[in-house]
């Protein structure tokens, strides 16, 4: 590898198949440019997006996570997003008390018609995350018993 490249945030987006994924498709169809930092994980419904997935994304060194689905009332499965909304509301409380940076985890509703919104959301998140720098989830690392924390040899 040559010189250290500028920081490029890694953004993981968990999106529902019927609204936000199609919204992102529409952004493509309309050739709406946005930063290439986002990786979409397609799930059928926001109802399927479990909090454990978000934790895993941070463990895998995501710098920001986006969760997005159909607007209230639009859910393909009628109520998955309502269940998700309530879950996330509570989950954010837990993250807050743990001191997880809430600026690293975003929730939006983006419909299949909102290609423009997808573009804006991704651009904003990418820029904001780029400004904040890499996310060191679970840091500062404990030093007192350093040996216990010999983390994965791979980085």
């Amino acid at each position, binding site marked *: 590898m040559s010189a250290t490249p500028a920081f490029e945030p890694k953004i993981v987006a968990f999106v529902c198949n019927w609204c936000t994924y199609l919204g992102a498709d529409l952004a493509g169809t309309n050739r709406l440019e946005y930063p290439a930092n986002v990786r979409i994980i397609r799930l059928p419904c926001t109802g399927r997006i479990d909090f454990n997935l978000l934790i895993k994304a941070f463990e895998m060194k995501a710098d920001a996570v986006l969760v997005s689905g159909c607007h209230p009332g639009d859910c393909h499965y009628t109520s998955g997003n309502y269940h998700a909304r309530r879950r996330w509301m509570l989950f954010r409380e837990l993250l807050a008390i743990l001191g997880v940076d809430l600026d690293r985890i975003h929730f939006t509703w983006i419909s299949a018609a909102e290609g423009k919104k997808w573009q804006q959301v991704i651009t904003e998140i990418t820029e904001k995350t780029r400004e904040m720098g890499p996310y060191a989830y679970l840091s500062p690392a404990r030093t007192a018993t350093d040996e*216990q924390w*010999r983390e994965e040899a*791979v980085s």
Partner: protein
Amino acid sequence: MSEVISTTDLRQLVGDWLSQGKRVVGPRQVKPDLILYEPLVNGEQLLLDGFVRPSNSIKEFVFPRHESVYAYLFQGKELDLVDAEVPFREQVLLAARPCDAAALPILDPLFNWDYEDEFYNTRRRTTTVVSLACLAHDDACFCTSVGLGPAETRGSDAILLSTGDDEFVVQPVNEKGRALFSGHTRGSAAEPTFPPGPKKKFKPGHVQTFLREQFESSFWQEQTLRCLGCGACAYTCPTCHCFDIVDEGNATGGIRAKNWDSCQFSMFTLHASGHNPRNVQAQRQRQRLLHKFLVYPEKFGKILCTGCGNCTRNCPVSLGVLSVLEALGTGQSI
């Protein structure tokens, strides 16, 4: 005539060791109501009196709760295996309770009988154990019942004995211990206070007979009903040493790690088929005692218990080895 070190000097010495790059582990007041063996940042953190013993044991400094044994890396379609670095940092386990120190020679043969555990052995080699003779004991202590005592030196490289006057008689047990304190003690006529140990609460011989003969006894079910199946006893026990091997990683590679495990977990013996030979908690409790007092002694000649009482103190429902063994001795309900 004995060699003594004052409390102040001992704390100073901790600072010296730290500045030499050694890791120093000793009892520390982590938060109100919680004393643990923890790595010390300075000598002042060392907690020397006013408590019976820390809630954890020193085993985790020679046998950590999580330890990578090797890493695997995908290089394209190839897989690279990378040996984990064997830890070699010098450490001093200071003011260890004799019941903690005594656990180490009990564990040594286990980590060397068929396969020499390089990680364990290296840590043992680079570790100096300085124990502190007990001045106090509580209802949970029973070192004397398993052949140990408050000033036991087995497993220690040196032992500190309080004179009750803010100083300690330093008694080296071997050259390693002598070297550690060499030049830091002074001669004194002070005599150490020898505390009495807890009174004997059972006879290991009786226990072994019972274990041999009463494998199917309803005793186990009766006495261990309240066990909720956590691992608090095993994880704070100086001698429990079971571990699990897990892989943790991602698409680029990962590690194979040794993690503590406990026979009290229902998953411990669960077969892939779904069958579980130890299907109820009583069988798991029986297993724990059987291993400590019969199987391990038969194999390695040593009881796998130092009477520290941690299992009783840390049990959410106050069920420890001692309560079961006492009941076994008296036939009374616990």
